[in-house]
């Protein structure tokens, strides 16, 4: 169960011709998830900044 299913790095990339599908799906999905976190955090930071500016100006 804990033996790696591939012998070389090339096999990991190619996966007998299916690597393009597998790696494309994982890379795009990870990018979407990471972007969701980044954009949400940035928007929270921006709104906190705006609230603080409004608060300071009374």
């Amino acid at each position, binding site marked *: 169960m804990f033996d*790696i299913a591939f012998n070389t790095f090339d096999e990991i990339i190619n*996966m*007998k011709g299916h690597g393009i599908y597998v790696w494309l799906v994982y890379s*795009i999905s990870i990018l979407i998830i990471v972007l969701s976190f980044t954009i949400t955090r940035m928007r929270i930071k921006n709104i906190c900044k705006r609230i603080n500016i409004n608060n300071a100006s009374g």
Partner: protein
Amino acid sequence: MYPYLLFIGITTLMIGWIWGVLYAPEDFQQGNSYRIIFLHVPASIFAQTIYYFMSICALMHIVWRVKLAAYLIKSAAPIGAMITFIALFSGSIWGIPTWGTWWQWDARITSTLILFIMYLGILTLHGSFSNLEKADRLMSILVIVGVVNLPIIKKSVDWWSTLHQPASISTSGSSIDPSMLMPLLISIVGLGFTLISLGILSSRLYILNREKNKKWVLEHV
């Protein structure tokens, strides 16, 4: 709590994905393309789970007028749309080597597309009203109406003859070998924690945005 959940989620998800993509054995029929399952199945599960969560919130908002429930719907909907898109996208790419096509208008795929459109519709509907209380109410009603699609997604593979395979995991057991099932279950748990932490972040953003003129927000920030 958010950083801890995110840490647990990402660590678990990485263990599940690395195990599944690199260590699980090759499938005798689908070859290595089946490794998309470790992303596609968790994404599909949470595409529906998030909608169930939203429908409970919608019920709470309609029946008891709980304002926070409407805020949670509005925070969860973009995450639901995102994860449904990932489920559709990963399924389409998986379909190319397995079925020879990236799209088929079969019952499971079409009902999942309707779920994605429902998420976008909920967000669009809420954004089109300047009266936010009215927007909350109508959004909750639309969420309740959309619940009818969930059993259709679940049962579509049993009710109709579809290209999509029937469920491999159910309450009565699993048809997947344990060497593939274990990383799949770990991936489901990992994605769950990751999405909960994104949900906390998203609801924080929406509550701050909505209540930005309230005294408690000024004190909190």
